[in-house]
C-alpha cells in the first residue's frame, strides 16, 4: 500500500495503482457517488488529461484533486 493525498485527505491505496484505479479506490473508501464520466483530475497541481489516467501510476505522497465538471452559467 502507499499513501496519497486525495482531495485534502490522506488515504491508502494499492501500490502501482493507475490514477483511474486510485480514484476508484478513493470513491469506494469514501463512499462517494461520483460519475467518472464527469470529473476533472488534478495530479500534483497539474490538470491531467483524461487519456493519461490509465497510463500514469501513482507514487507515494502524490496529491490528487478530483472534482465534478460543471458547465452551468
Amino acid at each position, binding site marked *: 500500500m502507499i499513501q496519497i493525498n486525495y482531495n*485534502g485527505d490522506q488515504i491508502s491505496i494499492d501500490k502501482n495503482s493507475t490514477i483511474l484505479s486510485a480514484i476508484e479506490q478513493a470513491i469506494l473508501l469514501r463512499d462517494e457517488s461520483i460519475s467518472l464520466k464527469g*470529473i476533472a483530475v*488534478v495530479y500534483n497541481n497539474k490538470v491531467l488529461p483524461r487519456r493519461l489516467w490509465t497510463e500514469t501510476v501513482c507514487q507515494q505522497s502524490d496529491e490528487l484533486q478530483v*472534482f465534478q*465538471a460543471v458547465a*452551468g*452559467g
Partner: protein
Amino acid sequence: MITDNDFMRYSRQILLPEVGEQGQLKINKASVVIIGVGGLGALVAHYLIAAGVGKIHLFDGDNVELSNLPRQLLFADEDIGQNKAETVADKLWTQYEKCEINVTNKHFDKQTLQEIDDTASVVIDCCDNFTARRSINQFCVEQEIALVSVAVANFNLQAMVYQPNVSGCYQCLYPESTQTAENCSTVGVLGPMVGIAASMQALLALKQILGLPNISGKLWHFDGINFNWFAAVLERDPECPVCSIIKCEEDSV
C-alpha cells in the same frame, strides 16, 4: 480623448495605475461577445457595460423563467417568457445609452457562431452545457480570440482564460470523453455563487481588454462549501484535437 463627463464617470477606474486614461480608452473601444445571458451573462454584461465597454454582442435563445429570478437579478416577474438576450439588452441600454448592444436571440449553434464578430477583443462563455462550450472554444482557438470561460453549479466554480498560442484550451480540460457536467438546473445553485463567478469573469475580461497579466494556463477552482481556492496548471495537451495544431509560443522558445 476622454470627455470631461467620462473622466468623472470612470474616475475610480482611471485612478488605478493599471487602467489610467489609456486603459479607459481601451475599455471604451473594446468589442465583447457574451454567449449565454443567464446567471453569469447578465451580470457580466452589466459590469462590462457599466465599466464603459463600447460594444457588446449578447447571444441567448432562452426565455426568462420563474426559477431564474433568485439569481438572475436583472429579470423581474414581468419578464417571464421574454427572450433573455433581448431583455438584458433593453434594460442595460436604458441605463447606459453609449454602449452598442447587439442581440442574437437564438440558441447557440454553428449558424449563430458565424455571427460572432471575429475582431472581438474577448469572447465570454456564460452558457450552460458542454456542447456549446466546446464549440465556442474551437471557434476562439481557430479565430485566435481570447476566451474567458467560467462555469458554476452547486458550490463549484471553475474559471479559465484561453489566450491564443499561449495556453491549454477548454478541450484540453474537458475532452469529448468527459460526457457529463452539472449545471444549475440539475444540481441547484445559490445566487451568490453565481455572483462570485460572474464578478470574476467580468474582472478576467477587463484584465484581458487592458492587456494585464491574466490567468491563462491555469484552471481555478473554488469550493464554496469549504471556501477553498486552488489553481492547477492547465498545459496544452499535445494530443488535443482542437489546439494541438496551433503552435505555442513556449514551443518556439
